[in-house]
């Protein structure tokens, strides 16, 4: 089957504005979903879950969130790590304070808590813009990490200062704790990714998404069409933080199980998620996934290549990782500021014309 839109005539606005206007894309999307639900859970093991699938799914949520704020609404945030920490610690406090609360709701409520905190730190965005705002979000990053590190209430005064996720299950399946199976954890994260990506797509294609993009592209013109900058920016901060908070909660409860805040949610985390959306594509849902996949897979591949194959010391491989990530960021910004998503689109454009390019 050729990749064509020929023969597909749109007769309603609904058909014209659907997510995957070309049939082939729609089939591929359902195929990925089916593989994700019906195939992966049966073959997944600890290594693949820990090294690839769980981090990919969780980072995809975080980068969807940051993309809403930065890619769609144009507000650069360097506080993602701090907000993920809010999600993680909210989940911990909820799990320990209400042992009977379903883990699903623990994650959701953690998202709402983070949304509240994120909105608070988003308030300065009404007065300050651009780099100033980016730097201001660092205040959130450092302050929040310090708070969770220093104030005993947040880690229940544990001697190590760590937080550890108690075992919780959804139905018959253990989701958190050391005995949870990778398949259950994977499906749990998959569920969140699916719902949140669907919501992100809906939000960004409608009125609220257009109001974000209007603020991003030209805030003065946004005001004259009736967009209240206060509501547009704060809603972006709130929804973005919700996503990031959910990612943080999953990162702690499902993925790591035990967390030390200065290690797990430091400034590097903020940068990694930022890099995901730059490499993947600012203002693109697909880009959030592509960037997350890239940033998760690259260290794994490098480690396999350099350490396992070539036998180098891990620290040299780590240095190379920095060099490659940094180089790629610059490369992408120079060659294609819209990231992998744009490259993907260009490829599809070519494919639509293939094999007769004129």
């Amino acid at each position, binding site marked *: 089957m050729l990749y064509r839109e020929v023969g597909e005539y749109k007769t309603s606005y609904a058909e014209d504005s659907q997510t995957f206007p070309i049939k082939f894309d729609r089939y591929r999307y359902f195929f990925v979903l089916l593989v994700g639900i019906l195939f992966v859970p049966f073959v997944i093991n600890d290594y693949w879950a820990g090294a690839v699938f769980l981090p990919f799914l969780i980072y995809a949520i975080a980068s969807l969130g940051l993309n809403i704020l930065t890619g769609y609404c144009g507000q*650069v945030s360097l506080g993602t790590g701090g907000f993920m920490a809010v999600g993680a610690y909210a989940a911990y406090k909820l799990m320990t304070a209400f042992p009977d609360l379903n883990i699903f709701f623990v994650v959701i409520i953690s998202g709402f808590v983070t949304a509240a905190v994120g909105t608070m730190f988003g*308030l*300065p965005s009404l*007065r*300050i*813009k*651009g*780099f*100033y705002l*980016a*730097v*201001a979000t*660092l*205040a959130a990053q*450092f*302050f929040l*990490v*310090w708070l969770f*590190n*220093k*104030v005993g209430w947040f880690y229940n005064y544990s001697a190590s200062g760590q937080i550890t996720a108690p075992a919780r299950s959804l139905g018959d399946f253990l989701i958190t704790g050391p005995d949870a199976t990778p398949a259950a954890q994977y499906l749990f994260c998959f569920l969140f990714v699916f719902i949140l990506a669907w919501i992100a797509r809906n939000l960004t294609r409608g009125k609220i998404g257009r109001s974000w993009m209007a603020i991003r592209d030209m805030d*003065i013109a946004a005001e004259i069409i009736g967009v209240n900058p206060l509501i547009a920016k704060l809603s972006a901060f709130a929804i973005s933080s919700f996503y990031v908070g959910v990612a943080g909660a999953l990162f702690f409860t499902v993925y790591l199980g035990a967390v030390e805040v200065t290690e797990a949610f430091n*400034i590097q985390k903020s*940068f990694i998620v*930022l*890099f995901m959306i*730059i490499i993947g594509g600012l203002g693109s849902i697909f880009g959030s996934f592509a960037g997350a996949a890239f940033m998760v897979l690259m260290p794994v591949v490098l480690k396999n290549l350099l350490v396992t194959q*070539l*036998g*180098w*010391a891990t*620290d*040299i491989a*780590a*240095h*190379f*990782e*920095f*060099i*490659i*990530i*940094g*180089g*790629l*960021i*610059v490369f992408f*910004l*120079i060659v294609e*500021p819209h990231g992998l998503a744009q490259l993907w689109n260009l490829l599809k454009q070519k494919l639509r014309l293939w094999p007769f390019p004129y």
Partner: protein
Amino acid sequence: MSADFLYTIEVILNGLMAGVLYALVALGFVLIFKASGIFNYAQGVMALFAALTLVGLQEGRVPFAHLINATFGTHVHNFDWTLPAVAAIALTVVVMVLFAICVEKLILKHLVNQEPIILFMATIGLAYFMEGFGDLMWGSDVKKLNVGIPQGGSLWFEDLTIGWAAEGEKFYGMYIDILDVWAAVIALVLVLVLTIFSQYTKSGRALRAVADDHQAALSVGISLRMIWVLVWSISGFVALVAGMMWGAKSGVQFSLSLIALKALPVLMLGGFTSIPGAIVGGLIIGAGEKLFEFFIGPLIGGATENWFAYVLALLFLVFRPQGLFGEKIIERV
């Protein structure tokens, strides 16, 4: 004078000294920002890289020793020579100039006319690259840096101040690190030299012209690319000085690049475009965070230096978005 009062003065003095170093890093930011509108996140990593190179050259380390050993199975670490500090500093300056040329050729040239935020993100990428590159080149162990600046507490100052306390109070004099004093003096000299350079030399005038208006500067025949190399070289030099001072104080290691982050709130206070702003902002942040840690820190768990500067700058910005000395932002419709 009561001992508490003297302690407060001591805290302020030490804070101001630390502030001078913040100001020094901030200065590098301001220079690049004024000349090219680029918010150079890599400034702190440049300081780290410069300090690493300085140590490496001084001690005669083999660049990429780790990598060479891993690839060829050799065991090279050091050359047989060591360099005097002055020669090593001079060579490091050359390296930083080369670095500036590379940045211009490989990055800036291709990103002309991009939005500022894209350039900002590119410098974050650059910072990552340099961090890996510096560590790969010189190894990631903590290094001692000694370029002959004296350090340690000043006994003279301690003796001088010990008599200030009121009769019967326990006070052992104020502690001031000689290195900090040197750093303050050098930073002052550097600022003076830069001011003279930008006011009275041809390149300096060109620099200011570019800062005012890129297009107009181009139209009178100033080469933008030359200016960029120049300004990145200068801030490479400023980074070297900052890296030297900080490295001598607490060793050359990864955390050195984090001082860049400390310079950010300094910039927010002082405004991105003002050299005096960078200095005053640095002093305010330096003294402010030490005072806050001294008085409030013990009540809330300490280590407030991690965030105090940012929160201070954030609150400040909400009320005065252009910073202390920044030009007023006028939005035209």
